[in-house]
């Protein structure tokens, strides 16, 4: 062992060929990949072969994976999904903005601004604690019930407000954790350079804080994409409601599977992108 190892190492250094260690590690990796492949294939095969053997499989297949119903409803679902995308598109910027404002409220340090701080605490406590559906009902039916004329009583306006209230509370907490992650020494350094408190926040703390919490906020926005469906409780016919209508007309759950596929087509790339951002950030830090 000893007599062969030293010439190899010398060769590797000179000829840039893989060292014995590298060769060994490559072998381990290949073996791990092989095992992973075999195990994955056998699990998938087991599912594909065994599940259909269950006595109720045919009924489940007919109720959930019905090709005829899928074909009849998929286009209608895609149509309804446009509404989800629209609600998401106008809610997301509002949520980001409100979340930032609430986070800044909670971070107000001047004694005179204590009411703002208190407001921030109460706001996040309440809206993080309430079920989204309840907020949507109270605001979506309650406020228009006060007697607003059309179009100001539209479920789109008040449903959006409900989403903004709940999600901005989550976003505010995430941003606040980002602000807290910036070390006090940065503020001290900024103060010693003569920056005002506001400028310190604007030019020193926030740029770093926001960058730190982008991945966490991406997760929230993926969750929002799914919770947009809850607006259907107060009337809008988005994809989940449309699937429910089809389900009722066909007495079949396949439309929900179609809706799930459409959701996945959007959320999986979004999740991968969030992962990518997170990895990039980790690499930049290490």
């Amino acid at each position, binding site marked *: 062992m000893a007599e062969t190892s030293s010439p190899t190492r010398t060769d590797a250094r000179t000829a840039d060929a893989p060292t014995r260690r590298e060769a060994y590690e490559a072998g381990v990796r290949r073996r791990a990949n092989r095992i992973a492949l075999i195990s994955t294939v056998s699990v998938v095969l087991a599912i594909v072969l065994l599940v259909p053997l269950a006595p*109720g499989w045919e*009924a*489940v297949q*007919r*109720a*959930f994976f019905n090709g005829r119903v899928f074909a009849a409803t998929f286009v209608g679902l895609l149509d309804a999904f446009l509404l989800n995308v629209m609600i998401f598109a106008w809610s997301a910027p509002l949520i980001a903005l409100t979340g930032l404002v609430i986070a800044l409220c909670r971070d107000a340090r001047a004694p005179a601004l204590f009411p703002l701080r208190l407001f921030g605490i109460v706001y996040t406590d309440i809206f993080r604690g309430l079920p989204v559906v309840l907020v949507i009902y109270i605001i979506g*039916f309650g406020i*228009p*019930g006060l*007697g*607003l*004329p*059309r179009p100001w*009583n*539209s*479920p789109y306006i008040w449903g959006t407000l409900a989403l903004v209230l709940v999600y901005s509370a989550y976003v505010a907490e995430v941003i606040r954790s980002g602000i807290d992650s910036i070390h006090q020494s940065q503020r001290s350094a900024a103060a010693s350079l003569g920056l005002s408190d506001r400028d310190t926040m604007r030019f020193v703390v926030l740029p770093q804080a926001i960058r730190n919490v982008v991945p966490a906020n991406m997760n929230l926005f993926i969750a929002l994409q799914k919770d947009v469906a809850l607006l*259907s*409780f*107060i*009337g*809008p*016919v988005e994809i989940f*409601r449309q699937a*429910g*209508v089809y*389900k*009722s*007309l*066909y*007495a*079949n*759950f396949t439309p929900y599977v179609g809706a799930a596929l459409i959701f996945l087509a959007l959320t999986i790339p979004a999740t991968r992108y969030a992962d990518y951002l997170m990895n990039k950030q980790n690499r930049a830090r290490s």
Partner: protein
Amino acid sequence: MKLLATTVMAFAVSATSVLAQGTCAAGKTLSEGQLTIATGNPAYYPWVMDDAPESGEGFEAAVAYAIADKMGFSADQVTWVRTSFDEAIQPGAKNFDFNMQQYSITPEREEMVDFSLPYYTAAMAVLTTQTVIDAGATATLDSLAGLKWGAVATTTAIPMLNDVIQPTSDPLLYNDNADVNAAIMAGQIDAALYDLPTALYLSAVVVEGGALLGQFPPTQSERPDQFGLLMEDGSALKDCVDAAISELTESGELAAIEAKWLAEATGVPVIE
């Protein structure tokens, strides 16, 4: 062999205490000597009074006991359970012998579950408020198309709304009656489409300032809304239930129950 077993079982059942029970349903129900009937949660007036089907009060509760009687079950042999629409259509074992909550019979649904013969044919009615009528809404298709519509998402009112009324703006859809009423009272929708008995009840009792603008009688519709009992696909009980219902229909008992529990709707104008 199977026939023999069934016969022996039927004989055993009828030979024991359950003498009153007809042979048709014997051995075909969920639990022996008991008929398990499902209804909604909650069950709505006037189909079931006070959400208590055990009382036999209300149209569907009364029909249920009449059918049970024809099938040879006494009132205390009837057990009630509650299901949602989704539970009723899920694949797999059901927890009821039949399910009764204003299920409209459609060919699409019939591919997944079994329906009995119809026990009621419903007119569709337009529920709105006096404010909307005062603002000029009339019982004509032109006027109706201009309204903002709502409906319960799990009902056959939706195809009717889209095919017959063809509203100019997209209807808003809700989970249940309570949500539709909230939307009417909040002024988010002008009108909602219900079966006539439900609409009569809602306009009189639930919706503040509620009014019926008009009705679509079943005779006008190509596919009238007929309610049937929902059973598991391929249910063995279907023939017994159908026999009981046709017996009730022919003897006029069904019409008598209908007259007793479902309000007279002649005052509601017909939409041509």
